[in-house]
């Protein structure tokens, strides 16, 4: 049963003080497609390489199935990896590239040929089998790299940002192909990317890392609906969630002119931590426009006034980047509007967060306070 387990795996680079990967605890189920995502330097590639055996593990353990592979060399782990720059052997043809591992393993030529042709058919590479990598386009090279991994029939696939070197359109196309290929083959896959869109669309589960620490691991839906902390809230979703620090008020928080009701427990938790403010998160699509003169909330406020700075029209939607005065400060907010009714630069909009779609985070610790 090829599950993958990171058991408090730690990696500290020699001479460094702070761990690149800090006691990572991650359980990946058999056949699952797990995406490791995070900003540059968060430790996602390092974690992947620890799993591959290309980095030493300084603490904890890594298991594939029931086997402890922490100190095994890469070739004994029964894994295959797709590198960011493909790492194809430039002096060999595509067929030789894909068959290299099998040749090393001593498989006979006919069998190698059969497997290579099979993988070539899955990946649509049949007419390129006799070409050298330099005669291939980026997308084709990427498929060869995947073919090289597939042919080995490993227990785990590792992919290190395989789509970053492709152009935007090809990226969208290839990511569907990779996702469907993984579903068809059913091999446990660990996929590293910095692109949260790839993470959300491809993964069965997504693990967000920051500075070597695991922030949250959950399905894309849950990650989106209930981010566990400020960082995940701001990282997942594009454009990013609006995060505004607001003072606590009676029965809720003071959001501009209005008071948004917030659960008693959340307020109590924040007060217990000694905060007088909390951070409210609202996604751009959950800020509703209100007309002038509408009565809202208990004290009849008119929502938050947002002065429009920039408008991005994307066809189906429009995103309004504006400034609002919250309390004493000016904050930049993003509001999604319908693509048919975009406001002009300089206009003032009034927005109010949709009830039930606000997230409350502790200002001091960043942790989620609402339910």
């Amino acid at each position, binding site marked *: 049963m090829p599950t993958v387990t990171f058991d408090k795996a730690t990696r500290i680079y020699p001479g460094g003080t702070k761990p690149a990967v800090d006691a990572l605890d991650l359980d990946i189920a058999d056949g699952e497609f797990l995406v490791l995502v995070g900003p540059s330097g968060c430790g996602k590639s390092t974690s992947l390489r620890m799993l591959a055996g290309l980095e030493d593990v300084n603490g904890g353990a890594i298991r594939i199935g029931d086997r402890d592979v922490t100190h095994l*060399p890469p070739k004994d782990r029964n*894994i295959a990896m797709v590198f960011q720059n493909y790492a194809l052997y430039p002096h060999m043809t595509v067929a030789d590239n894909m068959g290299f591992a099998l040749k090393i393993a001593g498989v006979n030529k006919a069998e190698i040929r059969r497997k290579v042709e099979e993988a070539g058919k899955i990946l649509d590479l049949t007419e390129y089998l006799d070409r050298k990598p330099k005669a291939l386009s980026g997308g084709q090279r990427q498929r060869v790299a995947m073919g090289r991994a597939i042919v080995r029939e490993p227990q785990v696939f590792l992919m290190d940002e395989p789509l970053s070197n492709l152009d935007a359109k090809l990226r969208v196309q290839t990511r569907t192909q990779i996702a469907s290929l993984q579903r068809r083959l059913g091999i446990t896959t660990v996929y590293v990317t910095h692109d949260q869109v790839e993470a959300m669309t491809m993964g069965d589960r997504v693990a967000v890392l920051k500075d070597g620490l695991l922030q949250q691991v959950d399905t894309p839906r849950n990650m989106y609906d209930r981010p566990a902390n400020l960082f995940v809230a701001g990282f997942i979703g594009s454009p990013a969630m609006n995060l505004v620090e607001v003072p606590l008020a009676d029965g809720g928080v003071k959001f501009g002119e209005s008071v948004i009701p917030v659960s008693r427990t959340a307020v109590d938790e924040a007060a217990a931590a000694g905060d007088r403010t909390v951070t409210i998160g609202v996604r751009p699509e959950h800020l509703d426009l209100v007309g002038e003169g509408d009565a809202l909330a208990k004290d009849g406020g008119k929502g938050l006034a947002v002065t429009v700075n920039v408008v991005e029209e994307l066809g189906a939607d429009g995103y309004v980047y504006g400034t609002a005065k919250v309390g004493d400060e000016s904050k930049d907010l993003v509001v999604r509007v319908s693509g048919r009714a975009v406001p002009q630069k300089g206009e003032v909009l009034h927005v109010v967060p949709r009830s039930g779609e606000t997230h409350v985070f502790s200002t001091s610790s960043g942790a989620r306070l609402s339910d």
Partner: protein
Amino acid sequence: MEHGKYRIITLFLAAPLTLYGVFVLSPFAQAFYISLTSWTGFTAAQPFVGLANYRRLASDPGFWKALEHNALLLVAVPLVTIALGLFFASTLNVGASAGTVKGVRGAGPYQKLFFLPHILPAVITAVLWQFLYNPQLGPINSALDAVGLGSLKATWLGDPAVALWSLAAIMVWTGVGFYVVLFSAAMQSIPRDIYEAADLDGSSRFQTMWRITLPLLRETVQVAWIYLGIAALDAFALFEVLLPDGGPDNSTNVVAQYLYQAAFQNGQFGYASAIGVVLCLLTLLMAAATFGLSRRETIEF
């Protein structure tokens, strides 16, 4: 300043081209002309004799013997130097931990040590090895005695059977360091993830070296072969300092020495020029053959 551009270019090119023409091309042409005369080198008279020198060359046993020695050097020296260079470069570069290409501990000082012989002037090398090879006082024979391998002792420069190989060994010793550095640099320019991919594919250190590193080094090895081939054909200083008389039983005379003897001992500049021209043509032929034999697509990463 479009219209003045070509004038500037010509102006700047004129000086180096003139220098090149006067000091490199012109002597070539002159040598070729002199080879068609029987100039003694001491008088001004240069009587034209056409291709007589070349005809004499074709049937001169001394020349052919010298050429034979050069041919042996041409085969042995590049082969051994490149093999040793690759071996040492690989031990210095393919590190212990999985998939990484970094030097083993202490690689830095080793590289400097390997390179040291290369910076010695040829004459110093010759004098040094003259002492090393000394049958009674030299360290080599003494060391063999000390470890009980006294039966392997030889008069390194006095025995016709070993003299040429003793000198070839010196040439290898001088050259290896440079090629260790050259091959190290070439190995380090191979992207690291190719080694990692090979590691993941299950390739052992030796298999990676044989199937990945060496093929990717092909062009560098080709360059090295040509350089060493030229060195083998042009060998002179070492031989002239250690065995100026052509060695025991004329077993180490090389073409460059034969040329030197013809010119400065026998006063036959015309003949010597003919030898020089032939040597030049042979070297060009060798270089062309090496390029032609290994003509394949360039490798791109």
